[in-house]
């Protein structure tokens, strides 16, 4: 056998990437095993992307389709940018999970079910007319159907847990089998279980026993294990983070870099709450959190924080951001620093709170009264969440302006490996309080940034009164003078426009800086666009990917860059909000690709859209 064919054989047995989707009842612990599979994969030198999908009911009745919770993990030996269009394997711990998730599995994929849960009653509850195990509807798949319930009970029999508690270990039995099938190492999970249930060694032991039993089952059944390629990752210290963790840590880093008190004021709302929860755990590094009585109070408190010299940060999702709009205009008028995080969800109104969308861009750009320009940034990956939290704070403090940082349910909750930043290498945010009493005027502006002077209570000699009422350009006192209002309107706009000078020039994320087509995106469409473009480029197509993080103002060279492409395609999880902005701001040939289903774009949807346009121009 020569070396080449040997290599070929090896490649056949090795999957470059694998997508596993875990689904079960909300009480089955799907999220826990999902994140463990992610962690085990990260530690197996895979890159990966994960995404949890929760039901919106807090405790839906067991066994119903609306009580199904799912978690998708995409891992492998090349950079992973998405959670994967289709699953290679579906773990469905009950009939309802099978019913609601089968459409995500590719034909020929592997299904692992717990046959013990396929009782007549559960089958009916899931809305099946006949058992899918018997009616041939799974013929196109590879079915693994052990009685996980029974085998879990056997595996944990001598741990002293009662039946109910024992049954809760089912998820780890299934995970053990998945680990066998993809060659994952159990030790990080065992370590995690022992740490998590340190106070409850019985529970830890039972889960470990279930994990081992599932793994052993795979081994004894001689189920074919798939070898998954490993990645050559750049050296560094890695962690496995969600978008909201990275965002929280970025805010804490910004406070450290600017040496100011961070006060985060928020009111719970899905999917924004995890940011509050994460920051609340950082009180021991000096982060203050405030759970306000409502969103209006939250933003007003944040404004009060900034008035007093701290960094006021508030966060919410669409409906709560709507409530904050009046106060945002106050912050614009009072010219105070403020960071407003919007973790977008599907709307309108209460919409689909657990589903993702990018439909609050217009709200961020225009959702205030009067002309109240502010800065809009958008994060598309956990790493970007960290960087942009610092960037938002830098801009807010340097330019005395509110900044809206857009995230969404997808980027906030998905997780990926992340190279830990080195705090020493991050640039300090140098903004001083104004203390000079000579000719003090709160609306005196720095000629470079156009930011007004920030004198904070406690500073003798700089006492001043501000508010939402229009101020005199020269003295800062109340003024209703017509020409003055014009001048103040102009300077507020010029201050925001001028921020462009401090934004690094925009470059394509992939591809040339000019050519036939650029696919332009922002926020959490980053992953699918990026993967689609690298696939298309691998096929020799000349397409570039341009990813925007700064949406108001744009990077200074943005128009020039976009003009270098004959076609511009903008995939968005809304009906074309960025496209309209691009058109209005000098890029008339931008074309939209809209999707509003509550689910992220699939790579192939973007590939097809690009291909059809490129082919059309060939004719």
């Amino acid at each position, binding site marked *: 056998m020569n070396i080449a064919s040997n290599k070929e054989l090896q490649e056949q047995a090795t999957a470059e990437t694998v997508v596993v989707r875990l689904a079960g009842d909300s009480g089955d612990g799907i999220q826990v095993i999902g994140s463990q599979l992610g962690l085990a994969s990260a*530690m197996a*030198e895979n890159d990966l992307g994960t995404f949890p999908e929760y039901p919106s009911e807090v405790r839906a009745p067991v066994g119903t389709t609306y009580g199904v919770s799912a978690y998708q993990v995409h891992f492998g030996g090349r950079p992973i940018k998405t959670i994967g269009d289709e699953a290679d394997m579906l773990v469905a711990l009950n009939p309802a999970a099978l019913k609601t998730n089968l459409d995500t599995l590719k034909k020929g994929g592997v299904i692992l079910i717990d046959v013990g849960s396929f009782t007549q009653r559960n089958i009916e509850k899931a809305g099946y007319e006949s058992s899918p195990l018997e009616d041939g509807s799974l013929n196109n798949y590879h079915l693994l159907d052990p009685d996980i319930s029974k085998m879990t009970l056997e595996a944990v029999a001598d741990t002293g847990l009662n039946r109910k508690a024992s049954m809760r270990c089912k998820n780890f039995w299934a995970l053990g089998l998945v680990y066998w099938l993809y060659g994952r190492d159990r030790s*990080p999970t065992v370590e*995690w279980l022992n740490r998590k249930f340190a106070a409850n060694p019985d529970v830890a032991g039972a889960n470990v026993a279930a994990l081992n039993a599932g793994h052993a089952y795979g081994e004894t059944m001689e189920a074919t294990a798939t070898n998954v390629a490993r990645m050559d990752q*750049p*050296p*560094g*210290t*890695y*962690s*496995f983070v969600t978008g909201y963790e990275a965002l929280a*840590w970025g805010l*804490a880093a910004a406070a450290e870099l600017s040496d100011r008190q961070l*006060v985060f*004021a928020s009111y719970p709302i899905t999917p924004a709450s995890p940011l509050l929860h994460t920051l609340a755990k*950082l*009180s*021991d*590094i*000096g*982060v*203050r*959190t*405030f759970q*306000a*009585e*409502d969103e*209006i*109070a*939250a933003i*007003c*408190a944040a*404004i*009060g*924080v*900034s*008035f*007093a*010299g*701290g960094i006021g940060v508030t966060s919410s999702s669409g409906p709560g951001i709507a409530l904050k709009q*009046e*106060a945002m205009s*106050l912050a614009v008028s009072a010219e105070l620093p403020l960071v407003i995080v919007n973790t977008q969800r599907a709307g309108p109104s209460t919409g689909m709170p657990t589903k993702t969308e990018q439909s609050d861009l217009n709200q961020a750009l225009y959702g205030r009264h009067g002309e109240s320009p502010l800065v809009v940034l958008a994060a598309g990956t956990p790493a970007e969440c960290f960087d942009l939290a610092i960037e938002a704070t830098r801009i807010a403090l340097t330019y005395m302006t509110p900044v809206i940082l857009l995230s969404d349910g997808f980027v906030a909750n998905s997780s990926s490996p992340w190279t*830990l*930043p080195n*705090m020493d290498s991050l640039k300090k945010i140098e903004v001083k309080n104004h203390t000079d009493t000579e000719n003090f005027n709160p609306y005196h502006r720095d000629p470079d940034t156009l930011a007004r002077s920030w004198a*904070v*209570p*406690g500073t*003798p*000699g700089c*006492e*001043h*009164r*501000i*508010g*939402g*009422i229009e101020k005199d350009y020269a003295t800062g*006192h*109340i003024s209703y003078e017509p020409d003055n209002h014009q001048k103040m309107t102009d300077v507020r706009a010029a201050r925001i426009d001028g921020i462009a000078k401090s934004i690094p020039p925009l470059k394509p994320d992939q591809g040339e800086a000019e050519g036939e087509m650029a696919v332009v995106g922002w926020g959490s469409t980053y992953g699918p666009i990026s993967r689609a473009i690298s696939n298309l480029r691998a096929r020799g197509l000349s397409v570039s990917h341009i990813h925007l993080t700064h949406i108001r103002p744009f990077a200074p060279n943005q128009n020039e860059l976009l003009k270098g492409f004959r076609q511009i395609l903008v995939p968005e999880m809304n009906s074309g909000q960025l496209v309209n902005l691009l058109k209005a701001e000098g890029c008339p040939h931008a074309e939209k690709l809209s999707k509003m289903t509550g689910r992220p774009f699939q790579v192939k949807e973007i590939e097809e859209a690009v291909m059809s346009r490129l082919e059309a121009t060939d004719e």
Partner: protein
Amino acid sequence: MNEQVNTAQLTPADFTTDQEVRWCPGCGDYAILKAVRTVLAEVGARRENTVFVSGIGCSSRFPYYIDTYGFHTIHGRAPAVATGMLLANPDLDVWIITGDGDGLSIGGNHLLHILRRNLNCQILLFNNETYGLTKGQYSPTSHQATRSPSSPGGSVDSPVDPAGFALGCGARFVARGVDTQIKQLTEVLKAAYHHKGASFVEIYQNCIVFNEDVFEDFTAKSNIADHQIQLESGAPLLFGKDKSRGIAFDPSSLGLKTVDASSGEADILMHDPANYNLASALARFANPDNPVATGVLYDNPAPVYTGHPVSTGKRSLEDVLRGGFSWQVGKNE
């Protein structure tokens, strides 16, 4: 407390800004402004350490006229803005100025929460039973059947009593003053200043344009004696000409009643500001059957809110970042 560099005693004039006061001539707000400036001077307040925060309304223009730090915010939200200031810097001396519409209509929620949290601040609610700035509509404190542009046939809403509301919210200091009774008002404001925690002061304020003399029945010079009981800590609850009437416990209603005190036989109660039940019953007193209680109704300090405790030094941000599962890729393991 912030370090105070200059300790020279300031005068009321030192708290006066160069801004022209824009209230209607004769408005009760002027007298309150004067009283506040006097109190600031008397208690030795420092300009740089003092912040006046207001919502929107005639009364909320107040910060522009006091030479300290000031923030004229948005309708009803001053308590929330003040909360943020105090979370960032608990050493500030924060005064919230609000109206009956501002504080109890649009801002009722925030007023409730700042009181029950007990932030260290003074809240002055100027009650004129009308919306002054928006030209005289009835407000949440307007008595029923108030005729106004928005209630030409008389208002139908039943009014809220600000002091009773504050007590119900868990306020630990509740007082009432009157714009024309300056001596009592300054005493009340001083007591509010010295109380640690949220101090709530309702001030009856005459809007001469839209609701002139609405409080005349108990604030007119000739009516004070018979229709107001001016509370004093430790003193018997007496009022009327020659202190001939008093307040006693009424076992049948488990409440208070007005009795004849001249015979000396009735069991007249002493005012104890730490007694919540007494304060609540006094707050409910209203003309014509009972006198309106003014002065400090309730003063019973409780721990001041400073938010969830924060500490630094135990962990660093680096520890947080590396605290989860992290692993090393590359040579320098």
